[in-house]
């Protein structure tokens, strides 16, 4: 519950344009009888990057998968309240919600039977958008946004899976932004990538933040510190600390946060 009071202090101390995009209140998430999250509350601010850190198994993936109701795809359930623009996400059709709250996964997962081009526009095409020249425009635009255009512009018809791991992950991000979500969830998007590809993804996140609200799960402290505006530290299914990234890394208020950041456990 102290997390809520913390959120309030942030609201007072930050710039006025800080607007709440999503809010999570007393979120408890379950896999059958297993409880993965207990009473997690936090705000997710518009056009800011929120990093979720914490040791393996603490519920990071579960948390972000609740945000676009992906949690229910694997049979999970949650109680508590999650709102998008002040509307309970349970009021949305899950399909519509996921167009607004897009997701990038840990392992690059381009559609195996589709070309690079078809992968980028898959979300649009499969939802009935057929205008060919417009699709081409969008594909080029999205691939440029993820800095992949120059690398693939001559091989748009090659299989998406024929790209390198880093390219595939940027392709998956392009695919996600092609449906113009408002929020993008990323679950360790760079953990399967080499340092150069990782740097590219981080740069990309920095650019995307101008137009999108981003929640990123990461195991990498430096990465969290580099790309995020806010950081939440989860431990054993509970929110231990939530603050501006600088504040959380430089002067954490909780002992456990400090220990984790210093690499003393986790």
């Amino acid at each position, binding site marked *: 519950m102290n997390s809520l009071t913390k959120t309030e202090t942030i609201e007072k101390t930050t710039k006025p344009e800080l607007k709440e995009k999503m809010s999570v209140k007393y979120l408890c998430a379950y896999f059958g009888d297993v409880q993965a999250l207990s009473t997690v509350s936090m705000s997710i601010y518009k056009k800011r990057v929120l990093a979720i850190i914490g040791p393996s198994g603490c519920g990071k993936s579960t948390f972000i998968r609740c945000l*676009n109701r*992906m949690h229910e*795809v694997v049979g999970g359930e949650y109680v508590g309240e999650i709102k998008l623009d002040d509307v309970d996400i349970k009021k949305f059709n899950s*399909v*519509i*919600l*996921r*167009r*607004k709250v*897009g*997701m990038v*996964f840990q*392992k690059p*997962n*381009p*559609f*195996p*039977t589709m070309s690079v081009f078809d992968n980028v526009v*898959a*979300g649009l095409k*499969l*939802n009935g958008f057929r205008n060919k020249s417009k699709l081409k425009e969008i594909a080029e635009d999205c691939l440029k946004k993820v800095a992949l255009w120059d690398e693939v512009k001559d091989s748009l018809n090659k299989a998406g899976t024929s790209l390198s791991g880093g390219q595939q992950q940027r392709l*998956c991000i392009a*695919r*996600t932004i092609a*449906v113009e979500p408002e929020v993008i969830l990323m679950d360790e998007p760079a953990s399967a990538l080499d340092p150069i590809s990782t740097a590219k993804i981080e740069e990309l996140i920095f650019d995307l933040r101008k137009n999108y609200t981003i929640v990123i799960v990461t195991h990498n402290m430096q990465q969290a510190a580099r790309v995020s505006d806010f950081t939440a530290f989860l431990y054993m299914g509970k929110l231990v600390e939530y603050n501006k990234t600088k504040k959380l890394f430089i002067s954490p208020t909780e002992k456990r946060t400090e220990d984790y950041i210093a690499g003393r456990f986790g």
Partner: protein
Amino acid sequence: MEEYNSTKYKWRIRKSNIAVMFAVLSALLVLIPLFLILFYTVQQGISSINWDFFTQMPKPVGETGGGMANALVGSAILVLLGSALGIPVGVMSGIYLSEESDSFLPKSIRFLVEVLNGTPSIVIGIVAYITFVVPMKSFSALSGGIALGIIMIPLITRTTEEMVRLVPSTVREASFGLGIPKWKTTLHVILPAAMKGMLTGIILSIARAAGETAPLLFTALGNRFWSTNLDQPIASITVFIYDYAKAPFDDWNRQAWAASLVLIVFVTTLNVIFKIISRKRK
């Protein structure tokens, strides 16, 4: 280093060699019947294979020559009928089973599919006879096609279910994550990814149906005359082989061999075509 010259080590090598030898021998043993089949069918049947064999009708008893044009067309019709029933039902039930895994209904359906798969084809023939031939008061192509379709269903259901399950769940999640509805995800994302494996199942089931005789004896019956009527008895290659092989005429026996050869070549061709297609798609 010493160890490698020890008698223990040598003994182990010898044991390994013996095991390998048995493995190779067993593999050869498997090949022997295959070669015998190919050898005999070619040796006995090749002399009867000519243009007439494919284009002529059977000759009356006592005359030599003639062909099995009606049986070829009949088999094609029967397999088409079987496919028209077996492929859609098999594919759709396979998709259903792969999507719904743990509740009572899919579990019992899966069990029934297993039972159906193990049911001898002659039993399926008898059931088709009682439910279609008796009420219609006539043997018919339609009842034969239905019997073949029922034989194809469990094969296609099983491969479809397995192949759809093999598509990584990450692919499905990627699609859901883009706000693509479940049915479109299945139709446009999962099925294309599983298509190759499903095609194998479908092709194998067609090959199986084309080679069935027992269920056709009770349903399509066979016909020495030209017929493409679905409500009339119809000829087929397998029943042609069955009739001609037990007939007391050398010429007919040779034609039975020839028809067997045609059937083997057809089934092999199906497999080769499939291999070529699947290699191209890579």
